[in-house]
């Protein structure tokens, strides 16, 4: 039986400084520090300055997330269990571990609000005319891309080769449902206006079917094997092929449908008959065809459209729901995902306007085409690219996605709460609550452990190797009733 699809999203935001030195690395640091100073009791720590592992019994830093951290850069863990840091030359937020797709939407939206609060806080630290702008997008239109990655818990028992071959058809075709849309083409060798509008932000940047890279020669299936939990039992599938979504329903479907497809693969209910002859060519070709009419070649010799393939996957998921149930993705959430998936496919097929309130690329295309017609613009006009960029603009007074009538599925109070509170359903609860209650005692945190300093040597490490231990159900009473971190540790037996 498929294991629970614990999941989360990491988003690298585009960043631009106006009216001051436009160095994206220092701007990202300033942005995050401004937030930490303004909104947290204690500035987030720099893991590079701390070496808790040297003092703690049985602690090996090597199994934390040290390898992918640039140690001199800002790197904070928030009380909602999220990680907020500078990655390469972008501010990045990883949501806390969530139990289902709906929770991911809540904490992804909370991440947007944290970035907005950070932009506001940063203004006070910049000269009067200067400001930092952030965009929740994935490319600058000039060939530079940055990611929005998803993560899913998968059983170690599943042969990785099966995951690669059976998830690829979904990764190539899901863009018709969850693509964020893009003006212009960034594929090397093609002119910008050769593709006036395409479905995905990211498709132009994928060059391999499978591999370890994330910043060059990007693969459709990424092989990074860094589970951040018990490696003997679990994998973390690190998905780099998606677009950052502004539509809540799109985020919900991106994570929800992928979680279901992974559960099917885990239970060996997926099969290989959707395998594509050339996934890299297909992902670009599908993105470059907003008419959704072109077909791609399957290894079996059949030719299908992306919509045909998505219908096929949905049908298989319905069958899986009937035979095995959707407990691993949350039964109610899973059922909602399937209904929503079906209604989007139906709309894309028969009445495009009917999904302009949930599908990012359709919402964006409608505005781009209307704007071009109104002002008599040709497809290469930079004003159309400006509309594209501004769709993702995090400034409240500039964001176009906030204005196109996208349907919401979570309410603002819930999002505000999630800016400072963790999900109650995963180990993120323990991390977030301990940070909020004992900020002076938690000296290091990563996904699978917390290190406490309670004033006596040595530092104490609390391992969290099980993503579903440390939930509110397990530890809320313990945390509530412990006056000090020392008391908590004593009662934990740590």
């Amino acid at each position, binding site marked *: 039986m498929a294991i629970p699809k614990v999941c989360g999203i990491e988003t*690298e935001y585009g960043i*631009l400084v106006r009216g001051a030195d436009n160095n*994206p690395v220092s701007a990202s640091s300033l942005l995050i520090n401004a937030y930490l100073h303004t909104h947290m009791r204690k500035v987030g720590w720099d893991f590079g300055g701390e070496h808790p592992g040297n003092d703690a019994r049985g602690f090996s830093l090597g199994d934390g997330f040290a390898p992918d951290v640039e140690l001199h850069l800002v790197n904070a863990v928030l009380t909602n269990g999220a990680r907020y840091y500078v990655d*390469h030359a972008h501010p990045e937020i990883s949501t806390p571990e969530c139990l289902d797709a709906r929770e991911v939407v809540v904490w992804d939206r909370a991440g947007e609000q944290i970035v907005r609060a950070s932009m506001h806080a940063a203004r006070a630290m910049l000269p009067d005319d200067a400001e930092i702008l952030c965009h929740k997008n994935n490319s*600058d239109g000039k060939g*530079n*891309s940055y990611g929005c990655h998803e993560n899913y818990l998968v059983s170690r028992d599943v042969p990785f080769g099966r995951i690669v071959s059976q998830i690829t058809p979904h990764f190539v075709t899901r863009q018709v449902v969850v693509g964020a849309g893009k003006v212009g083409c960034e594929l090397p060798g093609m002119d910008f206006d050769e593709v006036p509008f395409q479905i995905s932000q990211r498709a132009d940047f994928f060059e391999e079917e499978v591999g370890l890279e994330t910043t060059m020669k990007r693969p459709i299936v990424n092989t990074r094997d860094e589970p951040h939990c018990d490696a003997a039992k679990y994998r973390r599938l690190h998905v780099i092929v998606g677009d950052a979504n502004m539509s809540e329903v799109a985020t919900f479907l991106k994570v929800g449908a992928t979680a279901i497809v992974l559960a099917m693969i885990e239970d060996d209910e997926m099969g290989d008959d959707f395998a594509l002859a050339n996934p890299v060519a297909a992902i670009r070709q599908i993105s470059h065809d907003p008419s959704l009419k072109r077909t791609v070649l399957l290894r079996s010799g059949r030719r299908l459209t992306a919509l045909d393939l998505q219908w096929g996957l949905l049908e298989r998921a319905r069958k899986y729901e009937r035979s095995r149930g959707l407990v691993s993705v949350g039964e109610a959430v899973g059922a909602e995902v399937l209904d929503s998936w079906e209604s989007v496919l139906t709309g894309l097929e028969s009445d495009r306007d009917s999904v302009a309130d949930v599908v990012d690329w359709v919402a964006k295309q409608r505005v781009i085409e209307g704007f071009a017609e109104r002002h008599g613009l040709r497809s290469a006009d930079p004003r159309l690219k*400006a509309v594209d960029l*501004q769709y993702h603009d995090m400034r409240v007074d500039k964001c176009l996605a906030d204005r196109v009538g996208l349907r919401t599925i979570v309410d603002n109070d819930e999002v505000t709460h999630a800016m400072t509170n963790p999900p109650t359903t995963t180990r993120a609860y323990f991390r977030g609550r301990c940070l909020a209650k004992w900020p002076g005692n938690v000296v290091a945190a990563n996904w699978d452990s917390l290190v406490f300093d309670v004033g006596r040597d040595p530092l104490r490490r609390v391992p969290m190797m099980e993503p579903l231990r440390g939930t509110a159900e397990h530890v809320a009473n313990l945390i509530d009733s412990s006056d000090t971190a020392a008391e908590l540790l004593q009662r934990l037996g740590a």
Partner: protein
Amino acid sequence: MVERTQKQKPVSSRAEDDVVEAPASTVTGEKLKAELDDLLDEIDGVLETNAEDFVKSYVQKGGQ
């Protein structure tokens, strides 16, 4: 869809169809167009004043 169906019908039945179908589709179509017009008005108001420069200055370092 409606338009396509109507084109296939003989001229004599068209008037009858119009009574049933035209109001609904026209209202939806007009509503959508009016909404889009309002939206485009709003976008005209919030779009960067110098969009061309903005697009030119929007250069990012590659990330993951």
